C-alpha cells in the first residue's frame, strides 16, 4: 500500500494526545488530512481539522482514501470496522497488542470490501516529499529524502536506522512501508515486495527482515522473478534460539524462522543479503543502483 499527495486522510483518534501530535507531523510531510474521528467528540476541530463521531459520519462530508488509527487495542476492531464500512480503501493500524482474533475479523471484512490494511503494530508509511501516514520521522531530511529505493521494515526504530543509512550513502527513498511487528498482518512482506516491484518510482528494494515467522521465506519465490535489485538485512541472526526478542513474532523455534533459513532463501532468490544496515549502500552500488546526484 502506498500513499499519494491526492489521498484524503482521516485520523481516527485525532483528539487524543498522540493523534493530534502526529497529525501535525504528518501534515508537515505534505499529508492531506481532511478529517478526524473520535466517538463523542464530533463537532470539534483539532488544528483546523473537523472531527466527527465516526468515520462513517466523516465519509458523508469528505472523500476518504486513507484512515490511520490512533486508538487503544480493544477499540481497534470497531474503529477499523467503521473505516471499512465507510468505504475507506487504505487502513493503517499503528496499535500494538491488538487481540489476534480481532485482527482476523478486521482483515476478513477488509478483504470482502476491497480495502487494504497495513499493520497492526506498524510505524506506518512514508513517501518522502509526498506524504507520511503513521509515526515515522518523515519530516527529518537526514532520514527521508525523495529517491528511488523502496524500503520494507517490520520495525520502526530499525527502519529509521536503515532509512538514515540510505540517506548517508547518498540514496533517497521512493517509499518506506512499515509492515508491522505482529504475527498476523494485513500487509505481508510478500505483499509489500510486490507493491514496490510494480511501483514505477522504485528502482530497487531494501528488505529489512527479522528472525521468526516465515514472511521472508514466503517472499523469496516472488523475489526470484524480479528484475529490480533486492538488498536484504535480517535482524537477529546472532540471537540465541528459543528466546523471544521483543516482537511477538521474533522467536526461532525448532529451526523455523531462523536467520540462516531466511538468508538462504533470499540469497537463492538472487537478493544480496548484508550483515549490517551500514552495508546496504555498497550492496546497492554493486547491484548497479546509483545514488541520487
Amino acid at each position: 500500500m502506498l500513499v499519494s499527495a491526492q489521498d484524503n486522510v482521516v485520523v481516527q483518534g485525532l483528539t487524543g494526545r498522540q493523534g493530534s501530535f502526529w497529525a501535525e507531523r504528518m501534515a508537515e510531510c505534505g499529508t492531506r488530512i481532511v478529517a478526524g474521528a473520535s466517538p463523542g467528540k464530533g463537532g470539534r476541530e483539532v488544528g483546523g481539522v473537523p472531527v466527527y463521531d465516526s468515520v462513517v459520519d466523516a465519509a458523508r462530508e469528505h472523500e476518504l482514501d486513507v484512515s490511520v488509527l490512533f486508538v487503544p487495542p480493544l477499540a481497534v476492531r470497531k474503529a477499523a470496522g467503521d473505516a471499512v464500512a465507510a468505504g475507506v480503501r487504505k487502513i493503517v493500524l499503528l496499535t500494538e497488542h491488538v487481540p489476534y482474533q480481532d485482527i482476523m475479523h478486521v482483515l476478513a471484512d477488509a478483504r470482502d470490501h476491497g480495502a487494504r490494511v497495513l499493520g497492526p503494530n506498524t510505524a506506518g508509511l512514508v513517501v518522502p516529499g509526498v506524504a507520511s501516514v503513521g509515526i515515522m520521522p518523515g519530516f527529518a531530511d537526514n532520514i527521508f529524502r525523495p529517491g528511488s529505493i523502496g524500503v520494507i521494515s517490520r520495525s520502526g526504530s530499525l527502519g529509521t536506522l536503515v532509512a538514515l543509512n540510505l540517506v548517508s550513502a547518498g540514496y533517497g527513498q521512493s517509499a518506506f512501508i512499515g509492515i508491522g511487528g505482529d504475527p498476523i498482518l494485513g500487509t505481508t512482506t510478500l505483499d509489500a515486495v510486490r507493491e514496490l516491484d510494480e511501483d514505477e518510482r522504485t528502482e530497487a528494494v531494501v528488505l529489512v527482515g527479522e528472525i521468526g515467522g516465515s514472511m521472508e521465506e514466503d517472499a523469496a519465490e516472488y523475489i526470484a522473478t524480479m528484475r529490480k535489485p533486492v538488498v536484504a538485512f535480517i535482524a537477529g541472526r546472532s540471537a540465541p534460539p528459543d528466546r523471544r526478542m521483543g516482537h511477538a513474532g521474533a522467536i526461532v523455534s525448532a529451526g523455523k524462522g531462523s536467520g540462516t533459513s531466511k538468508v538462504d532463501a533470499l540469497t537463492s532468490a538472487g537478493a544480496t543479503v548484508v550483515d549490517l544496515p551500514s552495508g546496504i549502500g555498497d550492496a546497492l552500488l554493486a547491484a548497479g543502483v546509483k545514488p541520487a546526484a
Partner: protein
Amino acid sequence: MKLLEHQGKQLLAQAGVPVPRGRVVTTPEAAQQAAAVLGCRVALKAQVPAGKRGKAGGIGFAGAPEDAAGAAARLLGSELAGSRVDAVLVEEAADIAQELYASVLNDPAGKGPLVLFCPAGGMDIEELSARDPESIRRLGVDIRTGLTADAARSLVTGLGLGEHVEEQVTSALLTMYRLYRTVEAELVEVNPLVVTGAGEVVALDSKISLDPGALGRHAELVADLVPERDDTGTELERRGRELGLQYLELDGEVGVLANGAGLTMTTLDAVTHYGGKPANFLEIGGDAYTKATPALRLVLDNPRVRSLVVNFCGAFARTDVMTEGVLAAIEELRPELPIFFSIHGTGEEKAIRLVRERLGVEPYDTMDDAVRAAVAAAAGEGKVAG
C-alpha cells in the same frame, strides 16, 4: 500465555473433549493416594510449560500406588527444560491403539484460524511436517462464519479411521475450535489425540496458549487458572520480568541498551559482527524508557559486562526523552564502565547536546562506530573515551 497440560485439559474437558481421569499433585504421598483412587496403571507427568517432556524424562509410569510415590518423588523438585517441577499430573495410563494429531491455531499466511489434522500423531509436528507434509490436512477458516461440521468432517474422512472414530474426532475438532474462539487462544493443540483399544477418542496431552493481548477480556478464566509462577531464566532475567522489562542475559561482555526489538537485535548483531559478544538483550523504547534506572542497573549487575552501547533511533519514541532517562540513570548509578552512544532520529539534536553537556562524551556518528568502540573497550584495548 502458555497453559500447563493439566490447565489445558481442564478447559478441554469443560468444553467437552474427553481426557483421561487424573489429578494434579505436589507431593509423593498425594501421588500415591491419587494412584490408589484411580486404581489402575498410571502415568505421572511433570507440569512444566515445555514440549517433548517424554524425551526429557518428564513422564513416568507406575503399576502400583507405592511406585507412583517413587516416580513423583523423582519428578518433583527436579529441573526440566529450564523450569522447576512443582506439580505432577497423575492420570490413568491410556490403552493406545492409535495416535492422532489435531490443532487449531493462528495462521499468519491465511490471516485467520487454521485447523490441522493428521492421522499420525505423537511426534513433533515440525518433524512430521518436514518428513511428510502431505500427511497433514489443513483447513483455513473464515473467523466470521466459523468451522462447520461438514468442514471438520472433511478433515478426518477417507483415512480409514472408521465411522465411530471419525464422528468422535469431528466432534473433538469442533469443540477445540469453539474453545480456541471462546478463550481467544493462539493455539489449541492435542498431540496425541488417541484412539483407545475400545475405540474411544481421548486427549492425552494438551498445549494451549492464550493471546496475551486478549487476556483482559477473560479475567475470570485467568483468575481461575492461577497463573503459574514463572521461574525460568537467570536471576537477572526474573528481576527484569518483575520490572516489566524484557531482559535476556547473554554470555558476552558488551552491554546493550536500545529502543525497539528490531534495533536491539541489530545492535546485538553488530556487536557480534565486530568480534564482540553481547551481554544482554534489553529494549527500553516505548514507555519502558521511564524505567531507565532499573534497566541500567540490570545491565550493570551482570558481572561480565565491561562496556555499554546505547543505541537510539527515534521514530515514535523520542530520542531526547529516552536519553534524558538514561542520563538520569547514569548520574544516579555512576557506572565505572565506558559508555558509547549512537543517537539518530526524532529529537536527535537535543539528545546529542544532552549527552555532551551532562557526560562530556561525544556520541558516535554511526551505530557501527559506537559498537566497534564498545567491543574494543570490552576487550581491554587501551583506554577509550567514555
